[in-house]
C-alpha cells in the first residue's frame, strides 16, 4: 500500500471514474458513458459513441434517391416516417414538383401518428427507467394500436418506408380513417391515465423536478431542439417556422415551457401528444381526393446544386443536406440528426447531480442511439 492509499478515509471525496454502458438498460441501445464522480456527484461525462455506426452518409453516395429513403428508416427508427418525408421533400423541392393536397394531408397525419407512438414508447421506457414498471405496459398497450394502423396502411409496423419521391408508395387502406378516429377517441380516454400514473406521482416529481436544468441560452448554443429544447423556452418547432406538407393549414400550439428541467421535458412530450391528436382530428375527415403519387421519371437526377430540408421529428430538428452534381447518386448527403446534437448537452446539464439522476436526465432527452451514430 503506498502513501496515497493509506490516507484515504470514508469522508474523502476523491474523484473516480466509472463506466456506464455500452449495454446499460437505461440507454436502450449501445451508448457508453464514462462518468467521473466525486462520491455520488457527477463531475464530468464523456460519451463514447459509434457502436452502431453504419456509415449511412457514405452509403448514400453510392445509391439512388429512392433507395436513400429506406436507409433513413434505420436512423431514428421511432420517427421513421418523418425521416422518409424529409428526404422526399428535399428531392421534390430540388425537382420543383407540385405535390397534390391528398399526399400532403396523408403525410401529415402519418407524421403525427408517428410522433404519438414515439412519445408513447418514450413515456413507457422513461417510466420504467425511473422504477415504474406499470408505465411500460400501459405505454406499449396504446402504441400497439398505432402500429396496427401502420401495418394495415404500409405493411411495416416500425420501419414503414411509406414515402417515395413524388408521393406515397400506396394509397391509404379503406379502413384508415375509421381506425385513426377510433384510436383518437381511445387515446383521449387513456392519456389521462398517463398523468395519473406518473405526472402527479410524488416519487416521480421528486426525482424529476429541478433536475438537469437547461437554460434557454444553453439550449440555443448547444442546438437542443424538439421537446427538450422547447421545455427550456427555445421556440424551435420547424412545423411553425417553415411549415411543410399540410402544417400550414392546421391550428396547433407550440408547447413551450421555461423551466427546462427533467419534469418539464416530460410535460412537453405529454402535451405534444395532445397537440398531435388535435392536428390529426383537423385533417382526418378532410383528406382530399386525388392521386397518391405523382408520376416521376424512372431515374431521378437532381439538378446540380445544394438543397437543405428541415423537418420536425419526434426528437427535434432533422436536417437533410444534399449536394448534387447532377447524377443519379448524391455527391454528399448530411443528416443533421437531432439526437446527435441533443447528446452533446448531456455533460453540461448532468454536472452536479447524482448518478441516479443521470438516468432520469438521459431518459428525458429521449436519445435514440442509431440516430446519433448513423
Amino acid at each position, binding site marked *: 500500500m503506498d502513501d496515497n492509499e493509506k490516507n484515504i478515509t470514508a469522508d474523502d471525496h476523491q474523484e473516480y471514474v466509472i463506466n456506464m454502458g455500452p449495454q446499460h438498460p437505461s440507454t436502450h441501445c449501445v451508448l457508453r458513458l464514462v462518468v467521473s464522480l466525486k462520491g455520488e456527484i457527477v463531475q464530468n461525462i464523456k460519451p463514447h*459513441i*459509434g457502436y452502431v*455506426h453504419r*456509415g449511412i*452518409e*457514405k452509403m448514400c453516395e*453510392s445509391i439512388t434517391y429512392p433507395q436513400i429513403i429506406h436507409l433513413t428508416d434505420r436512423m431514428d427508427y421511432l420517427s421513421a416516417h418523418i425521416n422518409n418525408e424529409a428526404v422526399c421533400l428535399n428531392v421534390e423541392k430540388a425537382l420543383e414538383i407540385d405535390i397534390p393536397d391528398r399526399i400532403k394531408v396523408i403525410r401529415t397525419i402519418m407524421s403525427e401518428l408517428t410522433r404519438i407512438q414515439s412519445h408513447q414508447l418514450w413515456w413507457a421506457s422513461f417510466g420504467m427507467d425511473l422504477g415504474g414498471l406499470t408505465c411500460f405496459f400501459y405505454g406499449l398497450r396504446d402504441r400497439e394500436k398505432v402500429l396496427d394502423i401502420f401495418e394495415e396502411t404500409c405493411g411495416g409496423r416500425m420501419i414503414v418506408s411509406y414515402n417515395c419521391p413524388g408521393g406515397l408508395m400506396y394509397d391509404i387502406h379503406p379502413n384508415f380513417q375509421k381506425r385513426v378516429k377510433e384510436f383518437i377517441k381511445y387515446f383521449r380516454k387513456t392519456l389521462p391515465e398517463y398523468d395519473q400514473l406518473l405526472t402527479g406521482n410524488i416519487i416521480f416529481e421528486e426525482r424529476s423536478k429541478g433536475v438537469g436544468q437547461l437554460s434557454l441560452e*444553453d439550449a*440555443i*448554443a*448547444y*442546438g437542443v431542439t424538439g421537446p427538450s429544447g422547447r421545455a427550456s423556452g*427555445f*421556440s*424551435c418547432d420547424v412545423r411553425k*417556422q417553415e411549415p411543410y406538407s399540410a402544417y400550414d393549414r392546421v391550428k396547433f400550439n407550440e408547447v413551450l415551457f421555461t423551466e427546462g428541467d427533467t419534469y418539464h421535458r416530460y410535460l412537453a412530450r405529454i402535451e405534444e401528444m395532445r397537440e398531435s391528436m388535435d392536428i390529426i382530428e383537423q385533417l382526418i375527415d378532410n383528406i382530399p381526393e386525388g392521386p397518391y403519387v405523382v408520376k416521376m421519371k424512372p431515374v431521378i437526377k437532381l439538378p446540380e*446544386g*445544394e*438543397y*437543405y430540408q*428541415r423537418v420536425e421529428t419526434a426528437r427535434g*430538428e432533422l*436536417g437533410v*443536406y444534399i*449536394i448534387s452534381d447532377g447524377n443519379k447518386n448524391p455527391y*454528399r448527403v*448530411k443528416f*443533421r440528426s437531432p439526437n*446527435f*446534437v441533443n*447528446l*452533446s448537452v448531456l455533460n*453540461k446539464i448532468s454536472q452536479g447531480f447524482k448518478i441516479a439522476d443521470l438516468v432520469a436526465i438521459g431518459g428525458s432527452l429521449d436519445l435514440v442511439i442509431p440516430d446519433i*451514430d448513423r
Partner: protein
Amino acid sequence: MDNTQLEEFIKKLDQDIEINEGKQYLEVTLPADKIHSVASQLKEDEKTRFDYLFCLTGVDYGQDLGVVYHLRSTVHSHYIVLKVRTSDRENPHFDSVTDIWQTAEYHEREVYDLLGISFNNHPDLRRLFLDSSWGYPLRKDYVDDINIVTK
C-alpha cells in the same frame, strides 16, 4: 433582415468574401482564416444575431476539402450559409467555432473523424465514431475494397 440587407452587411465585414444567392439560403464563401472572426461578428452584432448553428457539414469537393455552416437567428429568423475551403489535403485545418456555438464541438469532432479536417483551438478533438486505425471514410479517395460495393 432580408437577403439583400444581409448581403450589404456582410460585404462590409471583409473584402475577400464571395457572396452567392443560393436557391434557398444566402451562401457566403470566406477565406479559410477568416471564419472565426466573421462568425463571431455575425453572432455578436445586434442586427444579425446568428445564434443558432443548426448544421455543420464537412465536404470533400474532390480537389478541396471544405466545411459548411448553416446558421439561423432565433431573434430575426433569417438564415445564412458560410463556407470555407482549403486545398491542403495532407493537413487541412480551420479555426474552431466551438467557443461561439457550443454545438460545434460534436459536429467538428464528426468532421475530424470522417474527413480528417482538424480544428484549431478545439477543446477535445478526438475521433468520434471510428478508432484511429481507420482512414477518413467520407473522403472521395477513400479505398475500402472489402466493405464498399462499387458497381
